[in-house]
C-alpha cells in the first residue's frame, strides 16, 4: 500500500496510515455501534417511553448506527480525497429513500383508497 496523500483519491474502506489511530478508530466505531444497538434493544422492550414514538426512535437509532459504520468501518469522510466515494454514497442514499418512502407512501394511499370499510379492510388485507 502506498502512503496516503490527502491530495489523491482514496478507496472506500481504506484504513488510515497510523496503526494506533487506525485501531482506535475501529474500537471507537465498535463501542458506538454496540452502544446504539443496546439502546435500540432497550427502547424496543421498555414500557417507560411513549408508545407511538418508539418506532420513529428506532429508525433514527438505526440511521445513526449506519452512519457510525460508514465513518469508522468504511472510512467515508468529508475530506477532499473522499469526494467520489461520498457522491456515490449520496446518490445511493437518494435512490434508497425514493424507493422506500415512495413505495410506503403510494401503497399506503392505495390501501386507504381501495378499501371499502374498516371491517372488510381487515379481511382484504389478510390476503
Amino acid at each position: 500500500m502506498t502512503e496516503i496523500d490527502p491530495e489523491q483519491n482514496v478507496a472506500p474502506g481504506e484504513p488510515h496510515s497510523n496503526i494506533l489511530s487506525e485501531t482506535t478508530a475501529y474500537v471507537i466505531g465498535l463501542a458506538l455501534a454496540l452502544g446504539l444497538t443496546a439502546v435500540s434493544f432497550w427502547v424496543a422492550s421498555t414500557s417507560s417511553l411513549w408508545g407511538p414514538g418508539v418506532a420513529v426512535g428506532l429508525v433514527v437509532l438505526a440511521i445513526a448506527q449506519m452512519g457510525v459504520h460508514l465513518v469508522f468501518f468504511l472510512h467515508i469522510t468529508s475530506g477532499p480525497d473522499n469526494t467520489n466515494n461520498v457522491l456515490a454514497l449520496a446518490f445511493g442514499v437518494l435512490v434508497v429513500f425514493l424507493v422506500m418512502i415512495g413505495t410506503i407512501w403510494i401503497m399506503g394511499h392505495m390501501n386507504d383508497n381501495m378499501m371499502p370499510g374498516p371491517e372488510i379492510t381487515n379481511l382484504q388485507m389478510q390476503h
Partner: protein
Amino acid sequence: MSTEVATIGLTHGASEDTGLGHRGPESKSIVVPYGFWLFVLSDMVLFSALFATYATLTNATDGGPTSNQLFDRNLVAIETLALLISSFTCGLAMIAAKRKNMAWTQIWLLVTGLLGAVFLFIELYEFATMVGEGAGPQRSAFLSAFFTLVGCHGAHVTAGLLWIGTMMAQLWAKGFREHIMRRLLCLSVFWHALDIIWVAIFTIVYLIGTLP
C-alpha cells in the same frame, strides 16, 4: 504521472486540474475498490426494494402467524452481536494485512468467518423452526416477503463466507501482492456493507415487528 502534476488536488480552486481527467486515471488500487463501492451501493438499492416490499406486506398475514408471534429477540441480539464483532475483526484483519503480517491477518479473517458462520447458523435455525411450525414462505405474503428479505441477506453472508475462505487461501498461496490486497479491500467493504444492511433488518423487521 509526474510528481508536480500528482500534487495538484481536485479541490484546489486555483489549480490547473480541471477535474476532466488531466492527471489520467487513478491507479488500479483506487479504481477497483471504487467500482466495487458502486456495486455495494447498487446492492443496497436492491435491498431497499425488498425492504419496501416487506413494509407493504407486513400486515398481509392471511390469518397466519404475525411478526409478534414469530420473532425471538434474544436470538436476534446474538446474531447482531456476532455480525457486529465480525465487522470489527474484519477491520483488524485489514490493519494486519496492510502491515503484511500474515499470521494476524489469517487469524482475524478466520475469526471474522467463524462469527459470520455463527450468524448464519442461528439464522438457519430460526428459518428451520419457522418452517417446522408451518410458518414457511408459502404461508402468507408477509412470510414470503420476510424470507425473501432476510434470506437475501443470509445469501450475501454465505457468499461473504466463501469469499473469506478464498481470500485466506489466496493470501496463503500468493502473499500480499497488490491484486490480492485489492481483493481483500473489496472483501472488507462487502462485509461492512452486510453489517449495515443487517442494522436495517434487525430494526425494521425484528424490533419494530415485535413492538407491543
